[in-house]
């Protein structure tokens, strides 16, 4: 009970956020998709009708039927089960990549934005260099250098993605630094450390959250792309991109094979985009106040 009272203001804010989300059908749709994804991923073992790796050479490349709702792949494995387990992989992939990139990038951006000076310049020029390259090419190069496994692909993508967050955080910090409440904090004697973590950081997290949501979907897509060309998940991992890669030779006569994993990717990205866009509006302090 005490806990509830302690977090009462935060709970109030959360309730209001949900109210705003409810008012926007598209955002609600996005949120629903993501929640569905998470549920599918967590409950994969329970809801999957077959073992994703159980080979059945008799029923190879069967079209969708009651036994196999999404059909089977070239080794007779049930496609639905594989896609369900693929959701688990995608969830982890998205979280790890975005989590790492956001964490590293935000801290560097925070330092660069607040302290400025030579260190800030150096950090921002490094981000410039990274951002000058096409993302996928760079990610491919790093993955190839590290060795083609899913782990390395995730690491590579995080390495190539952090500059985006550094830049995002930098621009947020630059704006927040000039706000009146920062000056007020200085006037009551707040030191640099507390200023950074208690005042500047919490106010800049919204942008990171919104970007992270959008990037979650993108990360899954890039990871699928890397798996597609063989640099990411290796067989028999049921990663969505890998499944599509397997299906390359059978496009002509097994339409279900690439379609369903493709749909899974499409719906996931649709969900993150809708949710991310909606969150951007919902969390914008000015728009919130307007509604209040």
């Amino acid at each position, binding site marked *: 009970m005490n806990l509830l009272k302690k977090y009462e203001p935060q709970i109030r804010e959360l309730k*209001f956020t949900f*109210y705003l989300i409810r008012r926007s059908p598209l955002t609600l749709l996005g949120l629903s998709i993501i929640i569905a994804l998470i549920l599918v991923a967590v409950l994969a073992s329970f809801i999957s009708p077959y073992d994703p790796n159980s080979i059945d050479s008799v029923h190879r490349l069967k079209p969708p039927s009651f036994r196999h709702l999404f059909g089977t792949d070239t080794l007779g494995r049930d496609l639905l089960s594989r896609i369900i387990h693929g959701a688990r992989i995608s969830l982890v992939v998205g979280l790890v990549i975005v989590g790492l990139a956001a964490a590293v990038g935000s801290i560097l951006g925070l330092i660069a934005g607040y302290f400025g000076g030579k260190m800030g310049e150096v950090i921002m020029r490094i981000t410039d260099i990274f951002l000058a390259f096409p993302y996928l090419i760079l990610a491919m190069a790093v993955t190839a250098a590290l060795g083609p496994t899913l782990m390395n692909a995730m690491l590579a993508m995080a390495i190539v993605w952090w500059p985006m967050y550094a830049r995002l955080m930098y621009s947020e910090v630059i704006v927040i630094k000039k706000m009146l409440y920062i000056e007020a904090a200085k006037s009551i004697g707040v030191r640099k450390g507390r200023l950074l973590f208690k005042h500047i950081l919490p106010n800049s997290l919204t942008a990171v959250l919104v970007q992270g949501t959008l990037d979650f979907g993108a990360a899954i897509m890039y990871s699928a792309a890397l798996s597609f060309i063989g640099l990411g998940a290796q067989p028999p991992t049921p990663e969505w991109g890998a499944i599509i890669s397997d299906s390359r030779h059978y496009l002509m006569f097994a339409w279900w094979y690439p379609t369903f994993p493709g749909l899974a990717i499409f719906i996931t990205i649709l969900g993150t985009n809708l949710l991310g866009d909606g969150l951007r509006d919902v969390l914008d302090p000015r728009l919130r106040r307007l*509604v*209040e």
Partner: protein
Amino acid sequence: MTNQGDVLLEIHDLKIYFATYEGLVRAVDGLDLTLRQGEIRGLVGETGCGKSATALAILRLIPCPPGRIAGGEILFKGEDLLLKSEDEMRNIRGDSISMIFQEPASALNPVYKVGEQMMESLLHKRRMKSEARDRVLRVLEWVGMPDVSRIFKQYPYELSGGMQQRVMIAMALLCEPELLIADEPTTALDMTTQMQILELIKSLKEKLGFSKLLITHDLGVAAEICDRISVMYAGSVVESGTVDAIFSNPMHPYTQGLLKALPKIYEDTERLGTIPGTVPALGSILEGCNFSPRCGYRKLHCDQSKSELIKIDEDHFVACCLYGQGK
């Protein structure tokens, strides 16, 4: 055609409600207002009293949803604006009724030159380009701009706050509106610039004879240039009359409280009078008078029913049951 002294704008029992997170907000709840040809009527009130909503409603600029006009009528030259179609309203806006906003900097488009922006509204009415240009230059002169041909070619950010506000006024006057609505036109300006703009408005009224609805929270400004004033509280008018009547003989307890709370430069006030309590939250609905929780003269009757505007004098109305029974 209306003559001086005729009623130009009449608002009866206007109700504007908004659907918000906390529930229904009655921004305007039964507003009555009259504006005559050739006069400046002030709509005075504090934050949240509904004055800006009223102004937007006249031009049908209230976003619906979440807002909606729940009742009443707005008669402009005898026709109800609330019943007009969007196309008809579009013709009226900027033409017969014009509006000036509070922050001139954000009302002017920063990527277009001043002259271009001003000509745009004229060109829509199918005037020739050269004719439009001449008119713009002439109106800029009317508002006292030095060197109008240079201003014509400048961008808004190159002008100072006072000049931007003059441009706004000029834009509003381009099509010779009969009614000008000004929402806090001088709040964002310096004191000396404010004086200049107020003088300008006064002199323009003499010269061009338009009528004006001035929305402000600044009692002093209202007293300086308005002919008549309506005092608003929590969504309706509590007192209305000529400037002299209201400020030398305020009848409603709220008006009295406001005047006591105002620091005056010609008086040596020991202590400012305060109105106990705070402005009611935007959602609260009371059976009776909205002001009674804070009123020093509160009686049982006040909490039971709202008071209508009662005529005290030829041109002085109060909505307070102290002066007679309401409905």
